[in-house]
């Protein structure tokens, strides 16, 4: 799941965006694209152009979906696998935010803390989280603890660095103004610093969710008994292309839902973002 900070073309250039169709026309074109893709898929497979082992027809994928949903596959129903994956993601997300945001706030407000932690962060950050998998297995064994830790490692740098930088960007006059009005200590932190940083923090949380989500399949490939990644590796080993497509499509849909949900809650939680 790739996150790029999206800018509204109109907000940047001050001109209505003539390079994009209005939504009323984009939606039918999107439908055309979806229907066209499905038709191409169906005709290619029904016409026997590609082997079913490479690309099974839509009806085969749907049957696999049905079979996995009702009878289950690789030891659990589809919903069971989905639930296990969602639970791991949720736990990792809560832990990442719970560690990352406070740490980032402290690092952003205290130069001493930042200078102590920064070198370690700089050592840990450029390494893709999968490279830590070996260490985690040695230290924590093969279990959900090391799986969730791997997910957390995939999301943590974005939150810590994003929050630290967000605190650094708080305008000095805003802090001085609040001080002049007699706000100090924790109240200053809560009302001014936290309030000013929240939009940027939520953006970094969204990027972290991306990092966590992309690590999911990898984390579940190692010795997990349940989860979408487990399903994927079982289907790869048993050469069941239908199931592979079901899982890939489901993961894409799941990522899309998570991404949209976070964007929506960002708009709801910080409606003032970018306004002043």
């Amino acid at each position, binding site marked *: *799941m790739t996150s790029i900070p999206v800018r509204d073309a109109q907000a940047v250039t001050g001109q209505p965006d003539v*390079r994009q169709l209005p939504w009323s026309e984009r939606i039918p074109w999107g439908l055309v694209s979806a229907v066209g893709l499905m038709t191409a898929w169906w005709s290619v497979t029904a016409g026997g152009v590609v082997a079913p082992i490479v690309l099974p027809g839509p009806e085969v994928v749907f049957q696999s979906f049905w079979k996995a949903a009702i009878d289950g596959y690789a030891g659990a129903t589809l919903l069971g696998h989905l639930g296990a994956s969602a639970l791991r993601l949720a736990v990792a997300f809560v832990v990442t935010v719970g560690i990352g945001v406070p740490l980032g706030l402290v690092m952003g407000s205290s130069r001493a803390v930042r200078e102590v932690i920064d070198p370690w962060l700089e050592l840990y950050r450029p390494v893709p989280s999968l490279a830590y998998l070996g260490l985690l297995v*040695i230290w924590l064994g093969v279990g959900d603890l090391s799986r969730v830790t791997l997910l957390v490692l995939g999301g943590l740098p974005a939150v810590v660095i994003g929050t630290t930088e967000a605190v650094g960007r708080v305008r000095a006059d805003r802090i001085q103004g609040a001080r002049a009005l007699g706000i100090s200590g924790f109240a200053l932190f809560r009302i001014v610093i936290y309030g000013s940083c929240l939009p940027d923090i939520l953006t970094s949380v969204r990027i972290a969710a991306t990092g966590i989500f992309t690590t999911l399949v990898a984390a579940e*490939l190692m010795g997990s008994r349940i989860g979408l990644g487990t399903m994927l590796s079982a289907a790869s080993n048993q050469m069941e292309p239908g199931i592979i497509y079901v899982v890939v499509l489901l993961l894409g849909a799941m990522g899309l839902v998570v991404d949209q949900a976070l964007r929506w809650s960002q708009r709801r939680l910080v409606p003032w973002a970018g306004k002043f």
Partner: protein
Amino acid sequence: MRDKSRFAIPLRSVLSLVTGMVLWHLVASSGWVAEFELPRPSVIVEDFLYVAVNGYGGASLWESLMISAERLAAGLSSGIIIGVVGGYCIANSRIASALLDPIIDFVRCIPPLAILSLLVMWFGIGEESKIIMLLIGAMIPVLLATVQAIRTIRRERIEGARSLGLRGLGLLRYVILMSALPDILTGIRIGFGYSFGALVAAETIAASSGMGWMVWNASMYLQTSVVFICIVIIGGMGFLADAALQTLHTRLVPWARHV
């Protein structure tokens, strides 16, 4: 703030690193943890020299490094080219944008290893499937950044250039490319991060060579010091590549705000 600290390392950071290393050494030699759980820093240095001379798992360290670097270079370069060209087309055709946006939005949400399992069915377990996965990982951020960049070029700039007689390739080269380049370079940096992560993932799960394979293999044989060595090398690769892309950014587009 972060950039300055890279050149002048604060005293506290040095002390923090030194203290950490001393603590590591003390804990590792205290006998509280087994040798395979946390080898002493000195052992890691010795093992590094050994692995550097003798190699690991039938390949020298340099060979493993180069295999990973080659995969990354192949995937990244093709991903950047397709991303920039595709992004240019999508940004300039409203219909292509409406047709392709939903597909790109969906594909960008699929974790790279899930894409790999599809690619393995299509292209087999050889190099192609890995390189195409890296290509996709790099392409999507570059494409999205290119589309954004071209769409947010101010119209006056293009109209001004037109009225001065610039058109065709000249317009593309001097106005559109130069305006979009800062964002495209940012997209390339993000794309590098994604495909680097995907590279390590693919080598861990589905390869018998390269740094990702080496780190996972070493951990299975409880060669913890080799695991640490690999992590440091992988981190060094990532750090150097990102620093190179940052330098490219400051050299190529010195007028853009440094991100």
